[in-house]
């Protein structure tokens, strides 16, 4: 009787100890080890294992085993071992050699692993929910397990199952807590009144409000006033009715700067179905917004340039109408002439001349019509090319097809760079259109060539030095002279030519030569480089804006874009000429400009 009481005391102490170990251990594995230690104080348990059953996958895992005589796998499918038998029957089992033989004969278990002498296993958990099996076994005739041992294990099994279950819950809870703490999105939890109870570090990183500053505050500290009250009413109505709300905010950081967020806000509902809290998960989308706004702006500019081009087409149509009217008049004149034919030999000759002139006028009108259609088609081509990469990269960003944050940045940069290219093309096209419509005003005065060259050197020498290129000018006989020209336009022309020379020269020099030819009435400026030159096949078309010699081919564009044709247009507008020469690829390039020395309109 005394013995029995002693035994009971010992068992009760052991169960208390197991309960304590739930708190005293760091993880499941440590808990298993502690349980093994405790069982070892109650009975010999050298060969000991714990099996857990995963119902959903129908797998048995062995997270803890101490067995010197048999290696136990980490996990295996549900089979016909003794462990599975205990799981199935939900009853503890003492398998002595004779019982084991009987079970094999009945074909309810199979021999798995090394045969033991006695095998003792108890189910862990309640009748309803068995989570696994705890088993000890002996391979030695000196150690035989009895009903007494079975009773001991049954006594402690409930507490062990409870301990394992608690530890598992605790580990799951810790994982969830870390997931929120380290989440790449900002997470805010509030109570029902909206008072903040928790924010994660990402929230502080984005908004500038520390954890201490945020707790107890209301999320309206982020309000920027950019969203109307109706927006917030709708948000509250949605989440108070138990539904999830999604949307974009423009909010204010602690330092006052604005930023864009995309957020999900959802109620947190407890087991009774009551709302206890709200949780918001938000992502900083400021960069994406910037790209969207930029693309929007570029599209608008594109639409405006389209209107300008349509106006040009109108002009061409009017020219054609005029030509048709003129032809009508010619036909009338023809009729009259036939009546007077016999007496008007000389008039006849005049008429033929007039007819010839009109034919030329009509041809010119048709040619101008054709050039303008072609200009329109090619403008469309030029603008679509960068537009393709803008739209393309924005789609890649939308579909999140990047593989790293760096690549995401690269896609954004590519879209922005392509947008810049598009804007440059639009500006160039507008310049060309203005030049062709003769809408650009020039205001020529007498200007010193040396002044112009000094200014260009000042602007460009640092760029040239960066590429280790020599940039110099040479006045013939050191003699400065005046040319009659618009100051802004000659600067634009010279800057464009010198920039091109620097761009296409990798080593050597860029020389500017100037000389006056007073008897011929013009001054000459030459830009000469030692760069890559121009292939012979391309020299003919280098100044053309889009238009090709015969107009029937696929309309290849000049490699330097529209810059050179703007230069040519401006030069000719001021009574100048421009020519480009190169011996071919690798032989350098030489551009020759001439300008009038004085006001030609005065001398006329």
């Amino acid at each position, binding site marked *: 009787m005394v013995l029995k009481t002693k035994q009971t005391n010992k068992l009760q102490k052991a169960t208390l100890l197991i309960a304590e170990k739930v708190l005293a251990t760091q993880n499941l594995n440590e808990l298993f080890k502690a349980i093994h230690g405790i069982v070892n104080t109650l009975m010999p348990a050298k060969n000991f294992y714990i099996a857990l059953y995963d119902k959903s996958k129908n797998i048995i895992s062995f997270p803890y085993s101490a067995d010197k005589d048999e290696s136990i796998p980490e996990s295996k499918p549900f089979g016909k071992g003794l462990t599975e038998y205990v799981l199935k029957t939900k009853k503890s089992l003492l398998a002595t050699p004779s019982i084991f033989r009987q079970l094999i004969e009945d074909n309810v278990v199979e021999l798995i692993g090394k045969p033991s002498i006695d095998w003792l296993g108890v189910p862990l958990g309640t009748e309803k929910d068995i989570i696994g099996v705890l088993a000890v076994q002996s391979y030695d005739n000196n150690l035989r397990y009895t009903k007494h041992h079975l009773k001991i294990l049954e006594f402690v099994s409930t507490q062990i199952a409870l301990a394992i279950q608690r530890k598992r819950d605790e580990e799951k809870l810790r994982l969830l807590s870390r997931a929120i703490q380290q989440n790449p999105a900002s997470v805010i939890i509030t109570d029902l009144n909206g008072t903040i109870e928790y924010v994660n570090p990402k929230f502080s990183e984005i908004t500038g409000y520390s954890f201490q500053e945020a707790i107890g505050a209301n999320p309206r500290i982020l309000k920027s006033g950019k969203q109307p009250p109706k927006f917030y009413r709708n948000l509250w109505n949605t989440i108070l009715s138990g539904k999830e709300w999604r949307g974009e905010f423009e909010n204010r950081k602690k330092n006052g700067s604005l930023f864009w967020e995309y957020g999900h806000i959802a109620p947190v509902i407890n087991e009774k179905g009551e709302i206890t809290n709200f949780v918001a998960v938000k992502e900083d989308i400021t960069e994406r917004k910037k790209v969207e706004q930029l693309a929007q702006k570029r599209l608008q500019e594109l639409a405006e340039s389209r209107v300008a081009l349509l106006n040009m087409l109108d002009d061409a149509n009017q020219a054609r109408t005029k030509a048709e009217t003129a032809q009508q008049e010619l036909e009338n004149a023809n009729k009259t002439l036939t009546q007077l034919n016999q007496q008007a030999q000389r008039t006849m000759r005049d008429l033929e001349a007039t007819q010839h002139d009109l034919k030329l006028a009509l041809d010119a009108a048709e040619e101008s019509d054709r050039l303008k259609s072609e200009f329109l088609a090619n403008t469309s081509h*030029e603008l*679509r090319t960068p537009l393709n*990469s803008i739209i393309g990269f924005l789609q890649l960003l939308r579909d999140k097809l990047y593989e790293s944050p760096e690549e995401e940045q690269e896609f954004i940069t590519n879209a922005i760079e392509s947008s810049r290219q598009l804007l440059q093309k639009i500006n160039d096209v507008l310049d060309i259109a203005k030049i062709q419509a003769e809408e650009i005003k020039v205001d020529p005065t007498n200007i010193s060539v040396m002044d112009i060259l000094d200014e260009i050197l000042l602007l460009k020498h640092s760029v040239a030095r960066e590429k280790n290129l020599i940039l110099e000018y040479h006045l013939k006989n050191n003699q400065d002279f005046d040319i009659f020209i618009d100051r802004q336009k000659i600067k634009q022309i010279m800057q464009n030519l010198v920039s091109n020379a620097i761009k296409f020269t990798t080593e050597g020099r860029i020389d500017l030569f100037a000389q006056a030819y007073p008897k011929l009435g013009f001054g000459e400026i030459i830009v000469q480089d030692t760069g890559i030159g121009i292939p012979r096949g391309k020299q003919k078309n280098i100044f053309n804006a889009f238009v090709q010699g015969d107009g029937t081919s696929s309309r290849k564009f000049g490699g330097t874009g529209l810059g050179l044709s703007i230069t040519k247009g401006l030069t000719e507008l001021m009574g100048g000429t421009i020519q480009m020469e190169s011996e071919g690829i690798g032989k350098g390039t030489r551009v020759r400009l001439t300008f009038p020395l004085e006001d030609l309109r005065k001398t006329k």
Partner: protein
Amino acid sequence: MIRALLIEDHLYNRSLLTTVLERKGGFSVIACEDYNQILTICQNDQVDMVLLDISLDNIYHQGQPVDGLEICKAIKSNPNDIPVILLSAHALPKDKNTFLKMCGAQEYITKPILDHDEFIQTIREVLKESL
């Protein structure tokens, strides 16, 4: 895996198309801008199809600049011709038929490409038809 040869001289479009073909279509992509190399790649059956821009700025043959139509004609003059898809920003209504007739390509896609999935689908259909 479908192997595509990409001939496109605009830096950002080349990078874009390579990414779309690889990630959306699962293709392997070779990009090339050398006339002789392009023809060698096609003759040696190193690719299953060619995606070809028309307006090219930096490809030369015997010192003369060549465009995509001339490259397409050269590819098609081989006995083992492979499908060619033209990819161009020329967008007049008549352009598609004119250019297809001029060079014998299988398909013509106008830039900007608005739907990447549809773009990949078009390429797959061309390949299916030319089997």
